[in-house]
């Protein structure tokens, strides 16, 4: 007639808590995180490969939109991954707290005495010439020396001993270490940041928000930039004949917040520089030709132009691609219209001439008589902030070529003879420099994460390889001495315990064998 009583809120909470506490739940959550990771590795991920995500979305309209909504393009940042991780950690804590309490209790309470020693998995009897009490005292000493925790039975000559608490201690340390790991990750990400900078040879960069390229990934509790800096003295690269890179090195001066040189350092792949908690990594590099544009000898624009490279088409090495950049000159054109000079750099002109002659694209690994092909556009510049050029509202006016150390006329594209600075508007290419891209970041959580990682390893070894074993000894009076009844059991690693038990019995026999030869016995005890 009546429906079953609805569980009260307290009961529901208790049920959820009990479910979370079970190892089965933790296991299932762990395996679900594993499954989510599979998805995260098979589909392109925004934080890692944004281009491939965009490509995927373009190629698969329906599935792309679906995966995007499901968070599958950013699995490890999606709400459900965070939820799974949170649940796992809650489950972990729920499991660890009672276990830790139980361990603390077990460490405080002495080992429990046994009733029927001869019913234990391992059992042996040893004869002793001493009294039962003396035999137990000797046994206690022997076992203590072997690092057993020993408790004497107050009611009769007997003892209980146990060893191997390291297993549970190690297991708990291993599991608690993940909480520490999480704390370290959250602290590091919360207070840290990461960004990219491009620095041209000879230029100085200062750690300030405006001086980063693109987006800075900063944590919620990030507390500002340091003002330290670096000056790139020189960038160097080495390649094999095959085009395989051998070494990239940025030779830098590290500057303190007042601009004083702290020290010089070579930043390489695998050799970051560290200053004021900032880690500075070699990330990539490129060319930055110095370009000077002049009107009747008056310089209107001068400086290195940081260049990018188009992605190489299939089958062509990336180093064969020319480098592109743009100089934007608002209001500099005829009649006050905007002007832009689009630049295409060929660091090794041999590749350029070879291509013009109908040859194959060649990798340009070193600077060799570099040339720049330029195109002049006039009209309306819609975007002054970026290094990209939107030619929709621009018109091509002229084009030409300028070699390193030379000058060309910008209006008709004609190269001028050496020494001729020309009249009208000119473009000069005095020198070619390189720029280096650094990844700059701060993560104060690293020491915590490292500590957690060490704790994970240190805890794992006893958790896997040590075992809890218990031993009981009772001495019963026998003719002219005592008989020691020894029983033992191991919770894990039972075969190993068989041997250990035999050794323990031998040691106990040697120790209690008789009071007449104590010296020899002690030596015997100490043999492992």
């Amino acid at each position: 007639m009546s429906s079953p009583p609805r569980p009260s809120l307290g009961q529901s909470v208790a049920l959820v808590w009990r479910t979370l506490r079970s190892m089965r739940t933790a296991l299932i959550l762990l395996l679900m995180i594993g499954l989510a990771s599979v998805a995260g590795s098979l589909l392109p991920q925004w934080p890692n490969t944004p281009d491939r995500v965009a490509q995927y979305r373009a190629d698969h309209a329906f599935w792309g939109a679906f995966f995007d909504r499901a968070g599958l393009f950013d699995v490890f940042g999606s709400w459900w991954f965070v939820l799974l991780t949170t649940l796992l950690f809650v489950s972990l804590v729920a499991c660890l707290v009672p276990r830790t309490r139980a361990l603390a209790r077990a460490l405080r309470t002495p080992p429990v005495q046994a009733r029927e020693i001869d019913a234990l998995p391992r059992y042996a009897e040893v004869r002793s010439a001493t009294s039962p009490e003396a035999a137990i005292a000797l046994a206690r000493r022997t076992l203590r020396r072997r690092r057993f925790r020993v408790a004497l039975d107050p009611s009769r000559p007997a003892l209980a001993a146990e060893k191997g608490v390291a297993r549970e201690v190690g297991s708990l340390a291993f599991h608690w270490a993940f909480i520490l790991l999480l704390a370290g990750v959250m602290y590091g990400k919360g207070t840290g940041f990461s960004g990219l900078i491009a620095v041209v040879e000879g230029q100085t960069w200062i750690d300030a928000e405006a001086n980063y390229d693109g987006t800075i990934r900063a944590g919620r509790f990030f507390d500002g930039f340091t003002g330290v800096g670096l000056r790139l003295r020189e960038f160097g690269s080495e390649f094999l004949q095959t085009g395989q890179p051998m070494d990239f090195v940025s030779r830098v001066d590290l500057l303190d917040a007042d601009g004083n040189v702290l020290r010089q350092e070579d930043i390489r792949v695998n050799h970051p520089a560290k200053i004021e908690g900032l880690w500075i990594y070699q990330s990539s590099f490129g060319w930055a030709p110095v370009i000077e544009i002049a009107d009747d000898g008056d310089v209107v624009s001068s400086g290195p132009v940081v260049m990018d490279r188009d992605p190489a088409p299939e089958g062509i090495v990336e180093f064969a691609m020319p480098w592109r950049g743009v100089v934007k000159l608002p209001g500099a054109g005829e009649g006050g219209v905007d002007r832009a000079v689009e630049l295409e750099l060929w660091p090794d002109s041999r590749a350029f001439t070879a291509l013009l002659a109908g040859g194959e694209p060649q990798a340009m690994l070193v600077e060799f008589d570099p040339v720049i092909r330029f195109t002049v556009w006039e009209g309306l510049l819609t975007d002054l902030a970026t290094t990209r050029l939107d030619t929709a509202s621009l018109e091509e006016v002229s084009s030409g070529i300028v070699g390193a150390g030379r000058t060309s006329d910008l209006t008709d594209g004609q190269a001028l003879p050496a020494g001729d600075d020309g009249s009208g508007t000119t473009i000069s290419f005095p020198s070619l420099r390189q720029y280096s891209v650094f990844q700059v970041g701060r993560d104060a959580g690293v020491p915590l994460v490292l500590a957690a990682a060490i704790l994970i390893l240190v805890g794992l070894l006893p958790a896997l390889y040590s075992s809890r074993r218990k031993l009981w000894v009772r001495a019963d009076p026998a003719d002219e001495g005592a008989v020691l009844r020894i029983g033992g059991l191991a919770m894990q690693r039972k075969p190993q315990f068989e041997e250990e038990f035999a050794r323990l019995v031998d040691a106990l026999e040697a120790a209690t064998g008789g009071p007449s030869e104590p010296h020899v016995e002690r030596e015997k005890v100490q043999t492992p």
Partner: protein
Amino acid sequence: MTDLQWARISNDAFNLALFAYLAAMVGYFVFLAFRRDAIWKISRLVAIAGVGANLVSVVARGLAADRVPWGNMYEYSSLLALLVVVGAIVVVEGVYKVRSLTGFALMFSVLTMAVAVSFLYVGPGPLVPALNSYWIKIHVQAAIWGSSLFALGGIATIAYLVVDRIERRRIEALGAQTPPPIMGGSVDLDAPGADATRGAAPADLVPDPAEDVESHSAKRRLMPSAAGLDRLAYRIIALAFPIWTFAVIAGAIWAQEAWGRYWGWDPKETWSFITWVVFAGYLHARATSGWKGRRAAVIALVGFASLLVTYYAVNLWIVGLHSYAK
């Protein structure tokens, strides 16, 4: 000797090792079929000769390239094959006295080397800057040792599943006539109440699950019981797991040095994590009632598959920061 000569020696020794492993594998399978000790002795000798050749190949490769000989997949495969055979001979045959799995370990190594020489071969050359760090010694070594032990654990797990099925059938067949004998094999003696059984009966009458793996009387038996194989697989995986954990941690430290973050969910990182998670699941499952035995073994097999994905699929087909390791 010149680099070129060392390279040639390395390649010749590689081929020699491959053929020796192949011959030893056939030998071990013949031994499984006919159970002659002499065949086992010869096969073992051939396998050890293969290990020698493999070692020469690895060392000569290092001398030819003038760096550690584990800088790409070909070299990694060669070392992996070596360690799997060494592990089979030293750990499985030597420590646990199980001879019947070595043939399968050799098969794994033969396949690994055949794939390496057919699809992954590159000449000896210097390392790309990203790999040029002392961490390559630590991280990659740990990964290879961990992988080789996981591979052996996977082989033992497969053997367990096969033998367990055979034993179950046998017990079923017996069960039709007589009650199943307690000595019959896969009766789970670790289950609750096992200790009580053991207490009641004289200790030497109750078989310990690991006894088949360890005691000398079991030497005569060719294939250990299912319980013994399960135990063996567990032991090897429990040995591999901390090494793998260390490999992942060392990789994270290296990533912090090289890429400026200790973890970035790069496909290699993700899959090594997945492998870690699956084997962690296996270790927990074995300690959870109801998940022991076949279920845990299936988890271990998933872990083994995940290990192969971590090694082959991630490097060859999934674009990521480890793609240079081809």
